[in-house]
């Protein structure tokens, strides 16, 4: 029996010659999965903890499908649904033998095979997190989950519930830096429904060499649960907060904008409000004033949010008045409870700290050299403190200037700005600039590719989407008793499509 099992488990060899053809691979895998999933748990259990253990015999990076089924059977046998620390056996705890096997598998499994076992993979990841949580060490699950995500999809650009699960875990454990590798990858696709007809094409089977991970992580592949708009929003809000934690305000700002442009039937939700509040503060920190909301955002929704975030706008207004430094302080004090309630006290504090920076950098537009004593007359504080502050600003690259110590007693210490942008600590050589331009070009090209595939997906499903919309419309009309006006939405879809073509 055991030999039978083994021969079955080893019967699928991904590198076999006859499987070079992608469709052949696909049929083989499907058939193989059907067989393996019929194997009962007892068979996998046989020989556990011995030399003949299937988990020892199988190679996770070659026999990934067999391995994951074996793992599943093993886990459900010993602790299917861990609730307390006691119910987690020793070998499954972080550092235990089985735990290590799971981690090893997630890190080294064959990405192509993983595409076929989406739901088991997702369950395994979830299980790992559950165990870590029950054991009171949620942080231990972060690295394995991250590797698992990267293994499945090196770009991690197709949104899955695992993304959300991962960022929640990072935020709970304050592991902002650990989240960065995932956050830095742009979410270019959402799991969508791919028509059956397309799925069976030679180049569309999951095993084909896809450029875009959205082709094999889709609504039916099992890698992700059903996703709602608020899931995506939550991911971006939490991601934005992680960037704030890392003090990467520019990225945080860009992240939060993704929350604001979520399509909406003239309503907003709490996540948008939350994002908007932080967005106002960050906008000040990055640009020195509140910028315009991205044009694609729903106007009515934004209006509703603005009405609920007046305190933040007042703060931003005070921030802009660089000549009136005490005003910001007063505003910040007045709204102290609001900031604390919203969890934004830290950001407001940053605003206070950074107003001096904007004050000084505005001086650079007026002066080429100014005695520090003059600045301290306007700002208050001693010359020594201010000099130190200016030196930190220069060292951190916020200020293109240098501090000079003159002998003349009436001048004292002098702040001298570099007028030529090619000089001073902030200067970039032409090589560096060129390099930056090249990098940007590369990024843009990748993005163009992603846009192209999004366009492709849209063109595939357009009829279907429209059909679905009509069906939805009928359903909602039947449910609520009145017809919803969806004409706006349809127009938007058309507009967006045109935009994509234009941008290409």
């Amino acid at each position, binding site marked *: 029996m055991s030999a039978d099992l083994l021969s079955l488990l080893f019967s699928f060899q991904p590198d076999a010659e006859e499987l070079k053809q992608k469709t052949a691979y696909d049929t083989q895998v499907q058939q193989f999965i059907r067989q393996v999933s019929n194997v009962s748990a007892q068979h996998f259990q046989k020989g556990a903890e011995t030399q003949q253990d299937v988990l020892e015999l199988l190679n996770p990076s070659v026999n990934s499908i067999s391995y994951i089924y074996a793992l599943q059977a093993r886990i459900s046998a010993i602790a299917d649904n861990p609730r307390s620390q006691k119910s987690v056996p020793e070998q499954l705890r972080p550092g235990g033998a089985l735990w290590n096997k799971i981690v090893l598998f997630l890190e080294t499994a064959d990405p192509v095979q993983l595409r076929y076992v989406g739901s088991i993979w997702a369950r395994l990841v979830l299980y790992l997190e559950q165990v870590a949580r029950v054991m009171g060490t949620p942080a231990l699950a972060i690295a394995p989950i991250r590797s698992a995500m990267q293994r499945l999809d090196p770009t991690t650009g197709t949104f899955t519930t695992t993304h959300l699960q991962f960022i929640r875990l990072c935020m709970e454990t304050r592991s902002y830096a650990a989240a960065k590798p995932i956050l830095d990858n742009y979410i270019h696709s959402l799991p969508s429904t791919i028509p059956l007809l397309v799925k069976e094409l030679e180049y569309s089977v999951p095993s084909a060499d896809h450029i875009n991970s959205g082709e094999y992580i889709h609504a039916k592949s099992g890698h992700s649960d059903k996703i709602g708009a608020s899931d995506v929003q939550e991911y971006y809000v939490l991601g934005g907060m992680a960037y704030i934690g890392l003090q990467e305000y520019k990225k945080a700002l860009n992240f939060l*904008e993704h929350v604001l442009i979520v399509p909406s039937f003239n309503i907003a939700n709490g996540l948008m409000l*939350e994002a908007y509040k932080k967005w106002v503060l960050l906008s000040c920190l990055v640009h020195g004033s509140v910028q315009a909301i991205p044009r694609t955002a729903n106007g009515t929704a934004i209006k*509703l949010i603005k009405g609920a975030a007046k305190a933040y706008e007042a703060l931003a207004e005070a921030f802009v008045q660089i000549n009136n430094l005490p005003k910001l302080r007063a505003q910040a004090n007045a709204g102290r409870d609001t900031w604390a309630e919203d969890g934004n006290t830290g950001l407001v504090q940053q605003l206070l700290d950074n107003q001096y920076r904007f004050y000084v950098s505005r001086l650079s537009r007026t002066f080429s050299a100014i005695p520090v004593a003059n600045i301290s007359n306007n700002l208050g504080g001693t010359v020594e403190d201010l000099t130190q502050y200016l030196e930190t600003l220069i060292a951190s690259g916020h200020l293109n200037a240098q501090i000079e110590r003159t002998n003349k007693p009436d001048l004292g210490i002098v702040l001298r700005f570099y007028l030529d942008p090619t000089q001073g600590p902030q200067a970039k050589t032409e090589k560096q600039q060129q390099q930056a331009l090249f990098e940007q070009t590369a990024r843009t090209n990748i993005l163009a590719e992603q846009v192209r595939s999004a366009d492709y997906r849209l063109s595939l499903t357009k009829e279907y989407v429209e059909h679905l919309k009509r069906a939805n419309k009928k359903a909602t009309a039947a449910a609520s008793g009145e017809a919803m006006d969806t004409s706006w*939405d349809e127009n938007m879809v058309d507009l967006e499509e045109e935009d994509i073509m234009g*941008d290409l």
Partner: protein
Amino acid sequence: MASSVEQSEYFQRQKAKGAMVVKDPPKFDLESYISNYDGSTRLDRLDHIGSTSTYLAVDAYRIAIPEAKRGKNVKLYLALVEDFSTIAPNDPLATPDLGWADKKNREVKEEQDKLEHELKSYKNNLIKESIRMGNEDLGHFYYATGNYVEAHKAYYRMREHCTSSKHLADMTLRMVYVNIAQKAWLGVQSHLVKVDAAQLKGEDKTKLEPIISACSGLAHLCTNSFRDAATSFIWTSPLFLTLEPAAGITWQREILSGNDIAVYGGLCALASMDRSELQQKILANSDFRNFLELEPQIRRAITLFCNSKYSACLEVLEGYRTDYLLDVYLSRVLSAIYSKIRTKSIVQYFIPFSCVTLDEMATKFQLTGEYASIEDELEDMINNGVLDARIDLVDRLLISPPTNPRYNVHAEALTMAEKYDHTLRLRLTRVNLLSAGLTLQAEKGHSKDGATGLGEGIIRGLGSKLGLS
């Protein structure tokens, strides 16, 4: 005497109020200056000079008070006497002639009753022309007594009884006149448009055009639109100087004289135009030359500016500051105009240099008292974006910043690319959400009304989502 006037209660009070007080003697002679004007503007101008210039106050009031007594405006007379009594209490004119005031009040009342009665009877007879004239008389009467609001109403009532376009034009000009007396400049502008729209032809039109352009120039000047004012003034036809009275008003005597047009127009042009424009539109403008000949110092200032002799130009203007401050319309906007000319001169002066010492700037452009030092003034100009330069407070230099177009183009390209990149990402996210059918909707059971949906939606959203974060 001037010093005692300066110490008088009235000017102390004016100073405390922050009102303008001019101590220096002006270049003009009061008698000959005021002889250029007639009608209400004469008293208005005298009042302004009397209340502003310590040097001319006594003379101005001495001319003004007897004149006011000859008119029907009792309130103005009493006000003038009261002001004068705080300047020179011992002057015989400083005690109000109450008997005259009572008598005059009575007379005025009688006249008003008479005119109103007449109007009523005209109305009963339903003769349009009579009603129009009755209203006109009443308007003239109210104007003379200084009740401009009622005058405006009376003139306005003429409207429906006007039978010819000339009547209409006359009525509108009267309205302009009243509005100028009230210093209601927006009203002046709107009525001027109406005069322009009245379909007058031929000679009538050419007669009215100079009045319209002069008055609209004045209105623009008083509303601080110097550029528009300059254009109106410099295209005013020299016909204005010799114009017959229109609508019973001698405009060049009762509102503003040719000299005024030259001064107002010249200063506004200096404040708002660049050198080549000044050359073309002012110095080469044969129409405006007629006016400029009346005020040679303005012509000189403009010529100096065009020849890049900025400090000499400012010097000339400074020399006439007192005169212009005593002008009833110019005094309010003069400092704005002067500072505009000054900043323009500084900018023009700095263009050919890469670096000038601050001391040199300070000697070239004498401080006007508005700023404590030339640095402050330059700092303000740079902050306002007027002057593209940097101040070196250490070596006391004004430096023109070096430009590096190649670097800038690269930097701009990079920021632009990043911006587009980000915008595209936002759009793509949105498309993805739309194509996946993920659109925020009011929850089922809620009405479509967004506001109520939001209130609950937000609270619910915050409750469930933020608990996790």
